[in-house]
């Protein structure tokens, strides 16, 4: 008994000290002097631009990574080919690589002095220090989530349901839409939530490729850092709170979506009870 309480205390204390307390304090500091300073901070044009930019990048990166992630998971689970193990390992690369390294790598390819630099320059296309590089960096770091969530679900459902749909006359596309997609939608949902959170919170890679130009290429995370360095603590706290609220909203929306669709558990219990 004592050991059990000890374990529980250790787990909760760990969470309190490292998670709840710091995040709680950010909220507390933000509203410490009432809504006035908070309001000033959230109406600051630089803040608003950073917020818009963060949302815009997420709106581009999340759908792309979702489509790519599902396609990639299908290839990994349903197809056999040489080099599959390499592809599988490659997908985890963004997990293993520090975002700063990702930023530098993109820099090497797309900057004026980089590989494609001269060609891009000649055609008047700006990638680095502009939105395209920021989107690329964000896509890179948030790429594995949907794949990693969908692969195990696809493995588990197997191919029989799809084959049954074919014999009933459903085309491959129709089968994907009517059978595969509903079967993997929870995997996709969790993948999207994680991808979104990662996109909103990305700092390192974007910091390298964006140039951090205030009101131009500054995302919310960069804005937080910038305000913090400038001793505008309320500004930093406010932006942090908004980031946290955005992430919470994503979770909330996903839960809402989840409640709307019926979910029936199957398993041996249901089997036995109703035989």
């Amino acid at each position, binding site marked *: 008994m004592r050991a059990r309480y000890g374990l529980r205390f250790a787990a909760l204390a760990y969470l309190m000290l490292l998670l709840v307390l710091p995040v709680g304090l950010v909220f507390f500091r933000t509203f410490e002097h009432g809504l006035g300073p908070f309001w000033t901070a959230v109406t600051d044009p630089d803040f608003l631009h950073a917020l818009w930019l963060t949302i815009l990048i997420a709106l581009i990166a999340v759908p792309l990574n979702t489509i790519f992630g599902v396609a990639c998971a299908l290839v990994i689970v349903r197809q056999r080919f040489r080099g599959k193990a390499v592809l599988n390992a490659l997908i985890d690369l963004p997990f293993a690589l520090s975002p700063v390294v990702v930023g530098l790598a993109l820099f090497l390819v797309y900057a004026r002095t980089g590989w494609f630099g001269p060609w891009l320059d000649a055609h008047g296309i700006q990638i680095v220090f502009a939105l395209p590089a920021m989107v690329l960096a964000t896509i890179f770091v948030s790429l594995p989530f949907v794949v990693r969530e969908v692969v195990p679900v696809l493995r588990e459902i197997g191919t029989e349901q799809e084959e049954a749909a074919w014999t009933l*006359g459903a085309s491959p596309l129709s089968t994907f839409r009517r059978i595969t997609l509903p079967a993997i939608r929870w995997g996709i949902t969790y993948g999207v939530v994680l991808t979104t959170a990662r996109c909103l919170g990305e700092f390192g890679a974007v910091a390298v490729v964006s140039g951090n130009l205030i009101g131009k290429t500054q995302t919310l995370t960069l804005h937080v850092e910038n305000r913090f360095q400038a001793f505008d603590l309320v500004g930093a706290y406010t932006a942090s709170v908004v980031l946290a609220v955005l992430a919470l909203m994503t979770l909330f929306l996903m839960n809402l979506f989840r409640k709307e669709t019926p979910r029936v558990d199957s398993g041996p219990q249901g089997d036995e009870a109703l035989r």
Partner: protein
Amino acid sequence: MSIAVRRVTKRFGNFVALDNVSVAIAGGSLTALLGPSGSGKSTLLRVIAGLEEPDEGNVLILGEHATGLPPQKRGVGFVFQHYAAFKHLTVRENVAFGLRIRKRPKAEIRERVDELLELVQLNGLAERYPGQLSGGQRQRMALARALAVEPKVLLLDEPFGALDARVRKELRAWLRRLHEDVHVTTVLVTHDQEEAMDVADRIVLMNEGRIEQTGKPRDLYEHPASEFVMGFVGPVNRLDDSFVRPHDFEIELEPNGTSRKAIVKRVVHLGFEVRVELALPDGHEIWVQLSRDQNEYLELESGQTVFVRPEKTTVFEPV
């Protein structure tokens, strides 16, 4: 012929799943593809359905070439061992799936689905999800779903394999009755010889990617074409170069010239059947199946000396 398979070969890597197989299945029949695991029976069924492409040979369904046609266009109904229920759809939506794909009018779909649910005795469960059904109910739903699109042939891949023994027996009898009502050409894959004999009017017995024998259940039992067939469709004793079914022995208490001496090792009572295990003088062991009445008359006990005589033996030409 409803289905004709001609010289089909299918390999998976180095493994030859089907080795130059030809088979013809008569319209309206219920045929069992019987064989041990790895004999190619499921692969053959999947080749007929178009779920596997054969490396060589072709398949005809109702006289039309089906080779190269995708499963969508073959007009086959397929039922899987693990039901392949669409878990996110209700029983009604599962059964209606093929009709919806064909864009039939809603009223017609409703009527047809009600009819089928009645046929498979699931009328009260239309709004349930597959997760709320038992295994036997799920498999009946899968059958209704396959029948909904009025397939030219119905293909069942170990349909009762995942069910417990009691439900399996019930469903077998039920399938037999269903086939009498619906009369669609049906091919059933099974590794269970009793199931094949119980349900099918013809058996195609397969082994190692080849067909060993095709015929009525009784023909296979009484006139097996090979040692493999004889051993697979029923129990068998080897006696020198010949093979004897356990019920084809006569046990006597006195010698009569043609009988052999044996010692009773064990008597096992299995209700109506009594199994007598015997040892011949050379140490070779055989077993004999007696009825309870026969055994009561003989009053056999272990250790007793008796005389056995095979009444019917089968000898196969050496291959």
